């Protein structure tokens, strides 16, 4: 088709569109949906927690704050990645809170090792958590993918890896309330391990879920 003819057709078919809200607003909107859902899923566990014990556990509070910040910044970065014109530096935004989260869990591992020796670093199977982790991630994943598909699939792999990091982080935030007092090595192996696996899986499926085929309506 001639380019002039294409322009004529595109202009003739033009429909009004509403510009997407800024990435940080969209990230907060997503978190506004994801957090109440996560809270509802772990509600039974939340009611069993001793509030005074949790409030006094500084490491737990730091870890939870870092987890939530990782979820928020990963979501902001994911939403930025579907807006043409944003620089690449914003994609590294989640690294800072993720670093704090890792450092806090690492410190816990060291403390457990000093206190309990090799036993403090033993990784035990924890498959019981899998159903809860799966259920907790469903709604945040669906909502985030729907929201991301409204943007431009410029770097689908990076976008979906960031989205997976956001979902895994918000899911971990909820899961932690079900595992208050767990050994840090278990958190490192199962929770952060799941974050890494999900992020890699997201990156691998990026083109399929967020490619131009979807945006152009050919898939």
């Amino acid at each position, binding site marked *: *088709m001639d*380019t002039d003819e*294409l*322009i*004529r057709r*595109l*202009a*003739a078919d*033009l*429909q*009004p*569109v*509403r*510009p*997407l809200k*800024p*990435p*940080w607003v969209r990230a907060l909107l997503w978190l506004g949906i994801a957090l109440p859902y996560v809270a509802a899923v772990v509600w039974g566990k939340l009611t069993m927690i001793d509030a005074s014990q949790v409030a006094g556990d500084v490491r737990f509070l730091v870890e939870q704050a870092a987890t939530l910040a990782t979820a928020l910044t990963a979501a*902001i970065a994911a939403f*930025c990645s*579907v*807006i*043409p*014109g*944003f*620089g*690449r*530096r*914003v994609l590294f*935004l989640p690294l800072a809170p993720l670093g704090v989260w890792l450092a806090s869990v690492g410190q816990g591992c060291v403390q457990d090792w000093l206190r309990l020796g090799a036993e403090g670093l033993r990784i035990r199977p924890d498959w019981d958590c899998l159903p809860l982790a799966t259920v907790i991630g469903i709604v945040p994943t669906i909502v985030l993918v729907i929201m991301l598909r*409204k*943007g*431009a699939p*410029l770097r689908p792999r990076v976008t979906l890896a960031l989205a997976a990091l956001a979902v895994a982080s918000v899911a971990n935030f909820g899961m932690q309330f079900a595992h208050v007092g767990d050994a840090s090595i278990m958190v490192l192996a199962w929770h952060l391990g799941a974050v890494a696996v999900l992020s890699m899986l997201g990156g691998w499926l990026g083109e399929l879920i967020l490619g*131009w085929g979807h*945006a*152009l*309506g050919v898939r």
Partner: protein
Amino acid sequence: MTRHRDNSNGPADSGAERWRLLMQAAQRGDKSAYSSLLREILPVLRAIVGRRWGSRQDVDDIVQDILLSLHAVRNSYDPARPFMPWLVTIARRRVADAARRSSSRSMTEALVGEVAETFFAEDTNVPSNGYGDAEALARAMSGLPQGQRQAIELMKLREMSLKEAAAATGTSVGALKVSAHRGMLALRKALAAKS
């Protein structure tokens, strides 16, 4: 949060500002603004694509791909932000996608020699010389001015790149381009007159 700076200035600034306003109107559904915008950005898109792709047909295909892409994601433009970084990012991304497609295609395609026979019928299998009348071509070549003949010999027959041919002849790339173009026109004219 990182934001692209709009690097344009002076008259380019007013052009970018005009496109920003046209895009804003297009998002509201203004068809005439959208048509003007797409026509005005065509040279920019052709320049971006042309830097990477030589063939005009490929350039047009990729430019059309970019137009379709920006149409599909026009909601991703924030009217409060500069227009050019938005446009250039989409264009570059689609050019990179085209390059990836092209390289993966070339990896799976196999070059085959000329197939000797097409059908059993004799009249479909007349041997032909792919270059036409070689003698007529040689005569037409000898009638060309020295500069044009040299340009065609180096670039078309010895398949040198523009840069290589310019280095070999000691002329500029631009002058060589003009010589080759004029030489091809003269050759075409000479061969057409003979046939």
